[in-house]
């Protein structure tokens, strides 16, 4: 894999929640996205995945930490200075029903990034570009002047993808792009994303709570828990040989459609996720972790390399035992 395209260094974002209280949405997260890869970002609802995704394209400003695009620190640039990076970093939204302006037709929707970046000189050129993009994402050119509500969820998501592509980006953050769609359509969209990645050399940061979808599409994967990363590594390493106890619980939660796989061995977590307003001290997972001791309660673990780019934030990683999940 080639160079680092996007890097987060110790990003932290907190949102005010009532008087003096804060939601610790993202705490001290460091992350590298390499050129041309798909990096999956997995975690349960409310763990800060989407916030991290928005921080990574600077749609939100971090409270502390730094964001680097191709090695340039863009954390403190003004909106105007950031404009030339803006084009490179695009976002595909989760809800294709809310992310398209109902008052614009397909042509204007897809043309918006082209107009903003002054890509086309004439109206005809613009129309041609829009039609080419529509073809790339599989929307028939006949629908040029239709409005978003006339399309199905999958088609709308394709329009959203075309809009992201129109900016000619390096990296696209896919924020749960298929979770609002039904399964056959999910597949079509995932395959479309893969195809586009191949033909355009795109890099994806793929956010999802669906472990099988992430496994299907990602090269590397990050597991997130309550605003922090617990584990990062190549998909097969993380899925088959989880190092962090939380990751193993996640993998146990995958249901396998195989009657022989039914075992009593499956361990599932009990209790609730701790609140992000008042996160536990030390390791954020210690309240639910069977292996936790005093050190975990006192001291937040650092990301350490278990070998081969497989990083874990745990004082007592599970080691190279055979995976609990095939």
């Amino acid at each position, binding site marked *: 894999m080639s160079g680092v395209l996007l890097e987060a260094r110790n990003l932290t974002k907190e949102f005010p929640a009532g008087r003096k209280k804060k939601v610790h949405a993202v705490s001290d997260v460091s992350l590298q996205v390499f050129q041309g890869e798909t990096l999956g970002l997995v975690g349960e609802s409310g763990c800060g995945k989407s916030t991290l995704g928005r921080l990574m*394209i600077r*749609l939100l400003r971090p409270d502390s930490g730094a964001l680097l695009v191709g090695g340039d620190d863009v954390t403190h640039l003004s909106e105007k200075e950031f*404009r030339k990076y*803006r*084009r490179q*970093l*695009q*976002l595909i*939204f989760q*809800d294709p029903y*809310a*992310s*398209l*302006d*109902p*008052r*614009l*037709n397909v*042509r204007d929707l897809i043309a*918006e*990034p082209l107009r*903003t*970046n002054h890509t086309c000189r004439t109206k*005809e050129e613009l*129309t*041609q570009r829009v*039609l*080419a993009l*529509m*073809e790339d994402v599989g929307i*028939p*050119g*006949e*629908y*040029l*002047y*239709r*409005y*978003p*509500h*006339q399309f199905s969820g999958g088609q709308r998501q394709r329009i*959203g993808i075309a*809009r992201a592509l129109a*900016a000619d980006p390096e990296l696209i953050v896919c924020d749960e792009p298929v979770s609002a769609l039904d399964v056959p359509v999910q597949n079509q969209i995932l395959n479309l994303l893969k195809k586009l990645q191949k033909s355009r050399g795109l890099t994806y940061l793929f956010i999802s709570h669906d472990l099988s979808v992430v496994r299907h599409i990602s090269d590397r994967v990050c597991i997130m828990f309550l605003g922090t990363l617990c584990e990062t590594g190549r998909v097969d390493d993380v899925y088959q040989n989880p190092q962090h106890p939380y990751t193993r619980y996640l993998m146990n939660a995958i249901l396998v459609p195989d009657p022989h796989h039914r075992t009593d061995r499956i361990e599932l977590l009990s209790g609730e996720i701790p609140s992000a307003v008042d996160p536990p001290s030390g390791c954020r997972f210690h309240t639910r972790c069977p292996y936790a001791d005093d050190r975990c309660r006192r001291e937040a673990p650092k990301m350490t390399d278990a070998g081969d780019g497989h990083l874990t934030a745990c004082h007592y990683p599970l080691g190279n035992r055979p995976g609990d999940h095939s």
Partner: protein
Amino acid sequence: MVSDRSRKIVREYEEQQKNAVAGMNASSDGSALAGKDAKEREEELKREIGEAETFFTLMRRLVRENKLAVFSAAVILLFILAAVFAPLLTPYSFSDMDLMNRLCAPSSAHLFGTDAAGRDILTRLLYGSRVSLLTGVVPTIMSMLGGALLGVIAGYLQGIVDAVIMRIADVVLAFPSMLLAMVIVYMLGDGLVNIFLTLALVNWASVARIVRAQTLALKETEYVEAARVIGVSRTRIMFRHLLPNCLPTLIVLFTLNVPSAILTESSLSFLGLGVQPPNASWGLMVNEGRQYLYNAPWVSLVPSIAIMLIVLAFNFLGDGLRDVLDPYQKK
């Protein structure tokens, strides 16, 4: 393959449109058959890719789908024509008194009767529509433009800009509007233009409030966030995403503000600050008939009905426009 086809269709369609003018010239040279053929093909292409929305396609849909709105537009047009051609439509003068014929009931000589000074009410109604239509529409448009612009700026930028604009709006809203209007007219002096300004200055604040509230809701939507990801400028987000999505509200506000402006003008006239007698405005006429309501009801009734008609017409037209402009209604 699909795209090649659609691209070809678009190219042909654009050529067709360019040739449309030439085609019309050609058909006068006797090649009507070719012209018809071209027209048919154009129709076919249009069916294939649909067409972009223009003012004319909107109007065509309005005519096709909402007869009531079209009828209302016709009523408004009729009133406008009556106002313009008032001197040609009536033999009477709007100001000369005829004390022998005070408070005549409607008859063939005076279709709507006469008022306390013996003036023909139809004549005064026609002349009065000049003032009333203008005071209904012009200041409303002024206040809507100003209010919408300030409202969307306040709502989208927030911070100090928001605070300044909205505190000024609060001050305007805190005064009884009649009192404020009187003060402004006193300062500016009477005259139609000053009345326009006065009404606009009194009404912009409520428009700004409503548009700001809507902007606050809309700016949190994902499509505005999406526009920000793309790098669309703030001005463009305001004009292209926020204001168009406020449009239904603005149209409803317009249909509510037109009658209220007509009525405010009549109140000002009643207090001697608006149109000066013997000139006529509908509001003034309603007030003049007040004392004779029992023995000569037509003096007040006729201008009241005129106000009601124009208000209804604006309401129906507004409804029709809102439906036509709503993308969800499109087929």
